[in-house]
């Protein structure tokens, strides 16, 4: 666009965090640059989240849990489907981000967006069906109905893969939230620029604030605070660093967090199963 003096001016984006439905800067005031692929040109500055941002995000995710998990499955489904719609609407922005920061071709970028939209639609469809598929009525001796139903496990922390995979990221987030969990997502540094369009998708999909929270920052600095936080009920570790995985397992012991490793990258029922817990009810029956 022509500037006031007929000059083309470009303004580097500052991409903020997404916590509680708002776009705050990190409380630490820090940032780190993301460069255009294979160049030293700054594409955007991202907030470098601190442990206090993690704490705030977890508190907000905890507050949002009751409201989100008690929404009707149908409504959660509608909202996930809306995310697919909004992703489609922001296709050009996603593609531009992938091309600029990851060096994807147009075809690759469109493929990644297609995968993400498919994942949203897949889990939108499952939101009001997975309980019927996974749940069961159990044969027991005695005059009781006995049935088992899956329920949301709670606040789920997601440590993203070092190798950015948009389809996998959306698969995780959609699978976690479709059953009523809330999520705190720490994006990997590689591909973290996707936070901007993705957060805008969530912010415009009727998603209640706090259900999905996106943080950008350094994995080495923050993973321990996510793994040790007592309000986090489950942690999904997609990163490959064996040291991080070992520490996550150790820290999870303190509040019996469920640690999820090697969850499938593609949409599937197993991804939902990994983030639910089962409740079995005995109900007496008469003649």
């Amino acid at each position, binding site marked *: 666009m022509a500037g006031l003096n007929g000059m083309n001016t470009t303004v580097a984006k500052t991409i903020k965090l997404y916590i509680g439905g708002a776009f705050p800067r990190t409380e630490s005031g820090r940032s780190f640059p993301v460069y255009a692929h294979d160049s030293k040109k700054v594409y955007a500055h991202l907030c470098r989240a601190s442990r206090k941002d993690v704490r705030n995000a977890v508190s907000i995710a*905890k507050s949002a849990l009751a409201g989100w998990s008690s929404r009707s499955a149908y409504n959660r489904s509608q909202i996930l489907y809306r995310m697919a719609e909004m992703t489609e609407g922001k296709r050009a922005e996603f593609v531009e981000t992938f091309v600029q920061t990851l060096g994807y071709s147009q075809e690759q970028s469109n493929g990644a967006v297609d995968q993400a939209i498919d994942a949203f639609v897949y889990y939108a469809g499952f939101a009001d069906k997975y309980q019927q598929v996974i749940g069961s009525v159990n044969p027991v001796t005695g005059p009781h109905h006995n049935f088992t139903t899956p329920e949301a496990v709670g606040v789920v922390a997601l440590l993203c893969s070092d190798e950015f995979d948009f389809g996998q990221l959306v698969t995780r987030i959609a699978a976690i939230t479709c059953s009523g969990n809330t999520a705190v997502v720490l994006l990997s540094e590689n591909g973290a620029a996707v936070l901007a369009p993705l957060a805008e998708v969530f912010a415009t999909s009727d998603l209640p604030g706090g259900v999905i929270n996106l943080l950008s920052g350094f994995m080495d600095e923050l993973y321990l*605070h996510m793994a*040790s936080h007592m309000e986090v009920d489950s942690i999904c570790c997609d990163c490959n660093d064996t040291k991080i995985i070992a520490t996550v397992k150790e*820290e999870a012991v303190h509040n019996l967090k469920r640690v999820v490793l090697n969850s499938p990258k593609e949409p599937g029922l197993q991804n939902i199963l990994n983030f639910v817990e089962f409740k079995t009810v005995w109900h007496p029956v008469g003649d």
Partner: protein
Amino acid sequence: MQRIISLQNHNGEKVSIASPPIDAVMLHERADSFTKRSVKKQSKMDALYKCIEMIDLTTLEGADTVGKVKQLCSKARFPITTELADELAGLPNYKPIPQVAAVCVYPSMVQTAKDALRGTTIKVASVATAFPAGQIPLKTRLQDVKDAVSAGADEIDMVINRGAFLAGDYQTVFDEIEQVKAACDKAHLKVILETGELSTYDKVRLASEIAMEAGADFIKTSTGKVSPAATIPVTLVMLQAILDFYDRTGKIIGMKPAGGIRNAKQAIHYLVMVNEVMGPRWLTPDLFRFGASSLLNDILKQIYKQVTGRYAYDKSFSLD
């Protein structure tokens, strides 16, 4: 310009009360400065422990039951469970969690609280004088005080007659505080100004002066039933009034912000302010209290984080 009003005490002696005007802009500037200090590590731990010792753990609800008050008293004695205390005991930087300063209840619950706290140094504070509105005849309000004192209350939290104060009838406000003070006998008197209803800092300052001249042992910001309740600026006005009163008369008056102080960070801001305005002498439970209920759990969470390195979860601590 300084405002001077002339009143009469119960002996018929003339009492002159001077109240300077408050510069709201500079007040807010100074109040903001207290919230920008970085209190970390051992200093933070010391402040957190001190905050606990200064809490008036409060329940003032229509739904209060004997069971709830007993539970609150138990929380006052043992802020964390013995299991958690055992878990933390071996960790460096941990020292046992102290008991709170007092439990604050309605007069009908004083006996229950007194029984539950027998054998401890925790005081029983009771709101009285038809808390929170105070809009009933003085005779009944005084009886309310006497009932609370005879039930064993160590401290009485009275509300001033805001109707009279806002109508400019300062003599009535003064007289009533004097009479309540007399009805308190040996119990300490905290005078609640309900600053949220006084509308200006000038009036807060004037009400503080009247309360102190009339015999308050403590002045307190709010009932917790009106918003805004305690704020840093309004507490600063009252602290300055206490300091000026001390310089003038040599009498030491305590301060109790109450209502709206829900997290440890806010509480530490208050301690910073008290330390800088009044000096460390006022940093004791005898002269500074927090009226709060949810604050205690947030302080415990912070201590847990400092000691274990992990962020706590709500279920670590009892809700009442």
